[in-house]
């Protein structure tokens, strides 16, 4: 039995699996555990934003546009050293698959085969994970980067590029102009960020629904609090009109999204090196 009470978020689209897992945990821990269940990505994000878990138990074959794996990586990118470790449940436990997953896993402590799962195996994995988890170090928070882009593929590609260059800085995403403004103003679904520092850099796509990049760029650059944050337009449009308008409205730079992944990695490498290592950011102050 672990000395630390497991505080688990289960991300699994299957209600039966949820019940089975809850029963298993009951058998081993009695009442000394907490389990929340999210059946999809969005629910998971919502729960994570309001409660601090110490373990993610994630179904790889999540029936969603994202796999449980993507979710785990995204959480890690977002929360970095504050992110709980993940125990990944996979229905396909062959060695080849596991090795492939392991190459990309950021913080997965165990892979468990669903069809071989029993209370003892689950508890062993949980206890060992909690025991091995180092205490959170008290480090200076790294500048965070915020990306606003409505295309989930583009968001994932940029996330992958960040992984490729092994950047430690937290990377966060919003999907449109309204979310971006809510995020920056720490309101609506982003109220809980009120005590966190603002992002040090914003990557902004121009073509987004609800509120487009141009409109939100103008709003941000006219806001006394937010205007200092450097904004790098990162967009597919290379149109002259967009280019000039962006600089007119105060964008700090304008970059056309590269078409290949290699070029994207190179771009992200140079962009982050410039803004994080060469430039002095306003966020570096107080």
């Amino acid at each position: 039995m672990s000395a630390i009470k497991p505080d688990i978020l289960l991300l699994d689209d299957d209600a039966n699996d949820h019940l089975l897992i809850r029963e298993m945990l009951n058998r081993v821990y009695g009442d000394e555990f907490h389990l929340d269940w999210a059946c999809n990505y969005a629910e998971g994000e919502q729960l994570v934003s309001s409660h601090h878990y110490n373990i993610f138990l994630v179904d790889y074959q999540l029936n969603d546009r994202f796999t449980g794996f993507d979710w785990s990586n995204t959480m890690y990118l977002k929360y970095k050293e504050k992110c709980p470790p993940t125990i990944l449940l996979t229905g396909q436990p062959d060695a080849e698959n596991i090795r492939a997953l392991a190459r990309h896993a950021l913080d997965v402590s165990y892979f468990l085969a669903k069809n071989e799962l029993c209370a003892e195996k689950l508890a062993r994995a949980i206890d060992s994970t909690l025991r091995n988890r180092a205490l959170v170090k008290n480090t200076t928070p790294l500048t965070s980067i915020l990306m606003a882009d409505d295309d989930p593929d583009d968001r994932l590609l940029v996330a992958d590029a960040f992984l490729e260059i092994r950047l430690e800085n937290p990377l966060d995403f919003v999907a449109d102009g309204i979310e971006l403004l809510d995020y920056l103003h720490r309101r609506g679904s982003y109220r809980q960020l009120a005590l966190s520092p603002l992002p040090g850099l914003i990557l902004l796509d121009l073509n987004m629904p609800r509120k487009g990049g141009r409109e939100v760029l103008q709003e941000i650059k006219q806001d006394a609090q937010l205007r200092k944050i450097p904004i790098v337009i990162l967009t597919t449009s290379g149109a002259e009109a967009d280019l000039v308008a962006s600089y007119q409205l105060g964008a700090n730079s304008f970059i056309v999204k590269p078409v290949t992944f290699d070029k994207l990695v190179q771009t992200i490498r140079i962009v982050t090196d410039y803004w994080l290592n060469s430039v002095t950011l306003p966020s570096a102050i107080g």
Partner: protein
Amino acid sequence: MSASERLTILMADDDPDDRLLVQDAFDEIRLRNPVFFVTDGVELMDYLHRRGNYTHLADTALPGLILLDLNMPKKDGRESLKEIKQDPVLRTIPIIILTTSSAEEDILRSYDLGTNSFIIKPVTFDKLVDIIRKVTQYWFEIVRLPASN
């Protein structure tokens, strides 16, 4: 020459040693772009407005990038920055404040006034070359500049 190699880099700095060091850094990285220097804020604005001593530049393209020191006589970098970013034609030119000042006030105020970046002048020549290399790589190879189209 590629499109970005034709763009002029304009540097405004009153210190002749600093101007020389940056020129040396450009030479070190074999920069092909033309570089022009002005020594104070009044000259800077005259150059950009193609007036005073610079009327002969009336039909030539504006610089693609400005490196701007904050502390200059006659008109300092802060005032120049403000004027440039309020001018409808000049405001699209990316400005990099390149200064010895690491004062919080200067950093925050510069971004507030719309500087595109703020860089503290490195103390060693090697580090200066490194910064200059990164600056030119970022602005001429990665970023799309309004002047380049």
